[in-house]
C-alpha cells in the first residue's frame, strides 16, 4: 500500500503530541542508526529504535501502535547517551508509551497477573514495571 504523505499527516496531533511530550525536535534525527546499534533490547524488537524515529517523523502512528518496541524499551538511556544529534530517544519512547497509557489502557494488567508470577518477581521489578507499563 502506498502511504499518502501530506502536510496534514506530518502535522497531525500524533506528531505534535510526541514532540510536546518528549520535548524533542524529532527532525534532528538523520538516521545514522547508532541508537539501534547499541540498544540492549534490540534483539527482541520487531521495529528498531531508529525505525521508530523515522515512523514518528512520517506520522505513521499505526505502524508504531502495532509494534512491541516501545514496550520492550528498558529506558536504559544507552541511545540517549550515544545519539550524535542530541535526541533524547528514551523520552520519545516514553512519549509513545504515554499516548497509549493516557487512554487508560494498560500494557500489562496487574489484576490479571498469575499469583505465582507476582510471588516470583522481586518487588522492585514489579513496581518499575507497573510504573512504565500501566496507566
Amino acid at each position, binding site marked *: 500500500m502506498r502511504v499518502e504523505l501530506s*502536510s496534514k499527516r506530518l502535522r497531525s496531533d500524533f506528531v505534535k503530541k510526541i514532540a510536546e511530550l518528549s520535548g524533542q525536535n524529532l*527532525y534532528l534525527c538523520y538516521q545514522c542508526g547508532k541508537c539501534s546499534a547499541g540498544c540492549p533490547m534490540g534483539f527482541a524488537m520487531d521495529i528498531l529504535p531508529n525505525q521508530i524515529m*523515522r515512523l514518528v517523523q512520517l506520522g505513521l502512528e499505526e505502524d508504531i501502535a502495532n509494534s512491541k518496541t516501545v514496550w520492550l524499551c528498558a529506558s536504559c538511556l544507552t541511545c540517549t547517551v550515544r545519539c550524535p544529534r542530541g535526541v533524547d530517544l528514551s523520552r520519545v519512547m516514553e512519549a509513545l508509551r504515554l499516548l497509549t497509557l493516557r487512554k487508560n489502557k494498560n500494557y500489562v494488567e496487574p489484576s490479571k497477573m498469575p499469583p505465582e508470577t507476582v510471588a516470583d518477581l522481586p518487588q522492585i521489578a514489579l513496581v518499575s514495571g507497573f510504573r512504565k507499563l500501566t496507566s
Partner: protein
Amino acid sequence: MAKREERIGVFVCHCGLNIAGTVDVQRVVDEIKRYPGVVHAEHYMYMCSDPGQELMRKAIREKGLTAVVNANCSPSLHERTFRRVCASVGLNPYRCEIANIREQCSWPHTYDKETATKKALAIIKTTVERLRLNMMLTPLVIPLIKRALVIGGGIAGIQAALDIANGGYQVILVEKEASLGGHVMELSATFPTLESPKDFLIPRIDEVMAHPNIRLYLNSEVDAVSGYVGSFNVKIRQKTKIVEEEIGAIVTAPGFDLLPREKLPVYPDDPDIVDGLQFERILSPERLTYGKIKRPSDGRVPQDIVFIQCAGSRDPEHGMPYCSRVCCMYTAKQVLLYRKAVLEGQAYVCYMDIRSDAKGYEEFFQQVMSHDGVLYVRGNVSRAFRDGDKLKIWTVDTLSGKSLEITADMVVLALAMVSRPGTRELARKLNISVNEHGFLTEAHIKLRPVESLTSGIFLAGTAQWPRDIPDTIASASAAASKVLSLFSRKELLHEPTTAHVDEEVCSGCGVCVPVCTYKAISIDENKKVAVVNEALCEGCGSCAATCPSKAMQHRNWSHRQLLAMIDVAGGGYV
C-alpha cells in the same frame, strides 16, 4: 657526426626493494661494467636522494663520463632530476637517458627474478646503444607575448581576468552573451551564507569594466585559434566583425548547462515542474514575482513543494553517471528560502545521499533538514504526474520501507550539471581534449589540475567538472597563477627533442600532417617539403614512425638509434 670516444656511466637504483627485491642489481652492475663503452657502473639504495645524486656527480667528474644511463623508475618521474644533476657538473643533459627497470621490469616480473634481471640488463644495454648516438641539445627559445585571453565571462572568467590583470598583464576577455556574470547572476542567494551573489559579483564586474588592463569583447565568440604557447593568434567573432589578437596564454572557462529535461521522461512537461535555475529566478527578489513565491501555472503560492535531487545525476542509464556536486547544497538553500517565504509551507526533499563536503556545508544542511516544515525522504522518484490542479509524486522512503505518494503544488528538479554543447567545438578549436561527457580534460587530475595537455592553455570553472562557487573561484585563480608564472619568465624554453625534417629526402607527400596531434607539421608548397613548427612539437614521434622515406626523424630517437637498440634487445633474455 664525428666518432668520439664514449665514456658511459651506468647508475642502477634499488628503489628500496621496488627494484632490488626482484632484480639482482649487483649482477647487473658486474655484467654491464664489461659492456663496450661502459667505464663506470654502480648501484645505490635511492639514486634520486641527495647522496645518490652526489654519487653521480662524483663519478661524472672523476671518470670524465661523456654519457649517463640511469636505470630506475619511469622517466616521467626522475628524468628531469638526473638531467639536472648532469647539467650541474657540465655534462649536456641530453646525454643522460633513463632505462626504465621498475615499471617495465621489476614490477611486472616480481615472481621471476632471473627473467627480471636479464630483462633489466637488456633494457640498460639498449639504452647504452641509444646514448652512443644521442646529440648534445640545447632547449629552444620561443617568443612570449605577455597578454592573456580569457574565454567566458562567468564568475570563473571574471576571477581569472582580474587576477591576471591585477598582476600587471593585459587580458582579453571574451563573453558570448551581452553581459558578464553567467549563471551566478541568475541565483537568488548562495549557500551556506545566503549571501546574494549580486553583492559580490556586481563589484567584480564593475572592476572588470573599468580595468585598464582588460579589454572586453561582449557578444563575441572565439572563431579560430592558431599558434602555440607564448604566441597564439586568435580570431574573435563579434557579430559580423572578426578581430585578430596576439596572445601568449589562454584561460578556458565556458561554464555549464543543465541536463535537458527531455532526457528524463519520468518528469512530464508541466509548468509547475521547474528546474533548479528556474526556481532560482522565482526566488530572486528582483525578478518577476518580487520575492513572493508563486507557481508558474496559476500564480498560487505553493503550499506543498517537492524537491527532487539526483535528477539525471548518478544515473548512467538515463542521465549522467557522475554526481553534480552542488545540488544537495543548493536544494537545501532553496528549501530554506522557500520556508522563510511561505510560513505555512511544507517542503519535501527526495534524495539518495547527501553530499555536503566543504566548509560550513554539513552544518548548513543539518540546520535545513531539522527545520520545521521540511521532510527529507530517502528515495528517488518513480513517477510525477498531474492530478487536477495538484501534482502527484510517487516515491519511497527506503528508511522505513514505505512507498509514498506525495501531493504537491510544485516540483523542483535538481537537474544534472552538464557541459555546454559549445564546449566540444571550442575544445576542438583550441586543440585541447574533452572527456566522454564533454568536460574539459586536465593534464593530470592531481598534479596538473588546471592545465590542459596543450601548453599555454589553462582550464577554469564548471566546464571542467561540476563545481560550486568557491571551487570555481579557486580553479580560476589557480589557472590565473599559472598564466602569471608563465608571464613572469624572461623567455620561454621548449624541449629540443622534437621532430625534424631532412629536406633532401622529404618528398612532401604529407602523410605526416594528419598524424600530428599537435598540428605542428605543414607542407611548404614552394619547396614541397614538410616543415615542423618546433614550438608546437611535443616529440611524440608519430610523424617519424609514419614517414615512408624516413625523412622525418625524432631528435635523439633517430631510426639509427632505434635499429641499434633493436640489435641488442633480443640478445639478453628472450
